[in-house]
């Protein structure tokens, strides 16, 4: 793998099994600089497993993951995050005794040094910007655990953005988020994308994917069955079949 | 060699009863209730008191065993169920605190002196070249019978099946109509009985004083961890390993290490053997002897 590789994230030949169950077999894809890539597939297709391996929360049986030309396969999750690949969780669990504002501030791991303890604590401006952007102002001083499921999702994305990642990996960012907020979320994510943050998004909501992503990879039973533009998803019979078992009329998928 | 085996077996029998109790409760409520070693002391003291109040040895032991089962159940409902809602680490702190409260009670009621059961004096005899007393063989038999009965309960009864179902997946068990709470209560009661029996078998061979529980804590815990916390019958094997290690450490001539003909480690180093094994296991095989995959617990 050379550093001159044009893609930011390269995944080659990823395989993983749990017991007798082959969850991923030979999955390869790449994520370009400033690209937003959707990772789709029915439940159990292995998309969360891909995310877990890429972010270091699960080890791969074989295969290679490279971030900006440097191998990060099976590296510790915190080291991967410090290299610029930061993830959120499907069901974010938030601390009881930290406020929303503190959690977002804690997203900045690099300034959390012991030597820095002697300096005066202040929240940085970026935290306030994120609170504004994610409509969390009203709850900024509440304990983070007291938020609703949807708000926790927003908080986890805001916190991950505070890491100033190169790649943001989102695990079902819209599940539980109010529909009105989804369009808003697309707008926010596009804004950060315009600043050069690439994104890898695991998601079920087709409308969200179509509005957000530049390109899609579709998984089924641990294998990639299609790579296409979001608007072409419904035209691909394999994708439709993987999702619904049988062929359906065009247009039904996004309903 | 026979001497070594008999020393190991006698020690293991006491540890195993209590360690099995610790482990089986852990399998259901996921926290190590270390106060169980003090339940053993309660059992021993209670049996001694009941005997001196005029009950026969068997009756005194039986009443003590049942009473400690009830006590274990009461503490679990009053204290641990509530603390577990916060965190298992909080419940662990609570069980250490309960141990201290129980020790305070022992000290107030019995004082610092050692007590014994009144037993008819039987002359020791030789078996396979090793000196035994009748009471040593009795305790061995009682422990073996109790452990066998427990194994049958776990693997041959409907209750045992339900217990294992709750241990494997509490939510799923509840969905199939098993009353988790009832199962937990029964298991806690049984664990108290096992612990009390362990305390009484110790009392049958020696004296009982208030530090008995503290001295039991780490070997018992080490046995349960070695067997895999939550693997009740694994704890029996764990107890055998710990007992063997203690026996080896104190009975091996280490003269060659210090350049003398005969040199033994002081007997007070016996617990160090179990601590060292425990720490090594926690480092390299935290899930115990019987799990092939090493992972974070």
């Amino acid at each position, binding site marked *: 793998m050379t550093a001159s590789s044009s893609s930011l994230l390269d995944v080659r030949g990823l395989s993983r099994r749990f017991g007798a169950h082959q969850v991923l077999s030979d999955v390869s894809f790449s994520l370009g600089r400033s690209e937003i890539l959707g990772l789709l597939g029915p439940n159990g297709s292995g998309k969360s497993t891909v995310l877990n391996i890429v*972010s270091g*929360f699960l080890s791969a049986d074989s295969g290679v993951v490279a971030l900006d030309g440097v191998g990060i396969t099976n590296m510790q999750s*915190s*080291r991967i*995050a*410090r290299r610029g690949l*930061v*993830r*959120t*969780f499907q069901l974010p*669990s*938030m*601390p*009881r*005794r*930290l*406020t929303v504002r503190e959690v977002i501030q*804690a*997203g*900045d*791991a690099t300034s*959390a*040094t*012991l030597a*820095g*303890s*002697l300096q005066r*604590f202040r*929240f940085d401006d970026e935290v306030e910007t994120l609170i504004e952007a994610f409509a969390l102002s009203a709850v900024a001083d509440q*304990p983070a655990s007291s938020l609703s499921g949807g708000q926790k999702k927003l908080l*986890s994305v805001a916190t991950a953005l505070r*890491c100033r990642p190169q790649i943001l990996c989102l695990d079902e960012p819209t599940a539980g988020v109010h529909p009105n907020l989804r369009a808003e979320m697309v707008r926010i994510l596009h804004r950060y994308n315009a600043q050069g943050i690439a994104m890898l998004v695991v998601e079920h909501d087709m409308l969200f994917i179509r509005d957000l992503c530049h390109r899609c990879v579709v998984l089924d039973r641990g294998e990639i069955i299609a790579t296409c533009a979001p608007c072409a998803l419904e035209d691909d019979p394999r994708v439709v079949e993987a999702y619904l078992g049988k062929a359906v009329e065009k247009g039904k998928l996004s309903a | 060699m026979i001497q070594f085996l008999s020393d190991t077996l006698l020690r293991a029998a006491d540890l195993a009863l209590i360690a099995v109790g610790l482990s089986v409760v852990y399998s259901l409520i996921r926290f190590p209730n270390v106060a169980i070693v003090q339940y053993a002391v309660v059992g021993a003291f209670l049996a001694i008191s009941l005997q001196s109040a005029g009950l026969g040895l068997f009756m005194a032991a039986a009443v003590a065993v049942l009473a400690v089962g009830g006590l274990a159940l009461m503490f679990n409902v009053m*204290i641990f169920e509530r603390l577990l809602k916060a965190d*298992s*680490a*909080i419940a*662990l*702190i*609570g069980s*250490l*605190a*309960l141990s*201290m*409260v129980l*020790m*305070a*009670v022992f000290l*107030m009621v019995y004082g*610092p002196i050692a007590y014994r059961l009144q037993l008819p004096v039987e002359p020791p005899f030789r078996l396979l070249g090793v000196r035994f007393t009748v009471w040593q063989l009795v305790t061995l038999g009682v422990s073996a019978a109790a452990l066998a009965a427990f194994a049958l309960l776990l693997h041959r009864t409907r209750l045992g099946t339900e217990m294992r179902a709750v241990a494997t997946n509490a939510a799923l068990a509840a969905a199939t109509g098993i009353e988790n709470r009832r199962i937990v209560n029964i298991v806690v009661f049984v664990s108290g009985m096992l612990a009390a029996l362990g305390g009484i078998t110790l009392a049958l061979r020696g004296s009982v004083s208030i530090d008995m529980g503290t001295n039991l804590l*780490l070997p018992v*815990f080490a046995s349960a961890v070695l067997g895999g916390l939550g693997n009740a019958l694994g704890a029996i094997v764990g107890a055998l390993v710990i007992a063997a290690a203690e026996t080896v450490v104190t009975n091996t001539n280490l003269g060659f290490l210090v350049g003398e003909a005969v040199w033994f480690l002081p007997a*007070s*180093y016996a617990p*160090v053997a179990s*601590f060292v094994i425990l*720490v090594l296991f*926690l*480092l390299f095989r935290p899930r115990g002897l019987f799990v092939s995959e090493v992972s*974070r*617990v």
Partner: protein
Amino acid sequence: MSDFLIHVASIACIYGMLALALNLQAGFTGLVNFGLVALFGCGIYGAALAHALHWPLMGGVAAALGMAILLGAFLARLGKRLSSDYWGIATLSIAEVIRITVTNEKWTGGAQGISGLSLLFADLKPWDGLGRLGLFGAVLVLTYWLCQKIADSRFGLAMKLMREEPQLARALGHDVDGIRLRVMVISSIIAAASGVLYAHYLTFVGPDQLVSADTFLIWSMIIVGGIANNAGVVLGAVLMQFAMAFVPFVKDILGLPTDFVAAARLLLVGGGILIFLLVRPQGLLPERVGRRA
């Protein structure tokens, strides 16, 4: 009587430092350490061994801190692999192994311990007691200031995030093992420093000062005072220390047998922990969530 009060207050300062050290671990970082007394032991035995070897006072301080840092780092390393309840028991075991070893070895003075250490400010008589109290108080204030700085910093934020959501902390790039190591080393230094002061206060060091009951006493201080609140745990240390010190007077007044003292102290510690955990788990001064800034 006033000498006695000065004595109790001096010991309360020592325990205040230990409570702050445990609070950094257990309160802010979620490290359930039941072997704190071993880190304190590094302090007292560092001072005592330096005395036995005729080293200067600072040599004892260096030996104490060196041993404590090594032990703290070892405990932190153990924590890499273990969940909190296993780690708690492992730390308890290690403290017991150390106590048993110290009791049985000759170079540590065995069960008799090591006596004849120099008394701090001995030439200030009759004001030496107050002098020591002043020193201990000053060191306690310094420790409190340090702990407060750490808890209120961004590093403190990372500690608290690790305490409650270690997985989230990792995903955000926090080096959880590194945080554990740093917290253990800092609090080990605090515990060892309090041990050095204690050794040069009592002028005698022995294995009886390494018993796990002392660890639980410190636990009762942080639980009663308010876990994860630095002011709370110092308050807890003062309250528990005074309560423990006055038990013998209660015994005399009520004419109770000698065993009452030991039993009442066990009851104060165990009962104090249990009652607070059940009735007021946040302690007398609860942790403050959020900040004024």
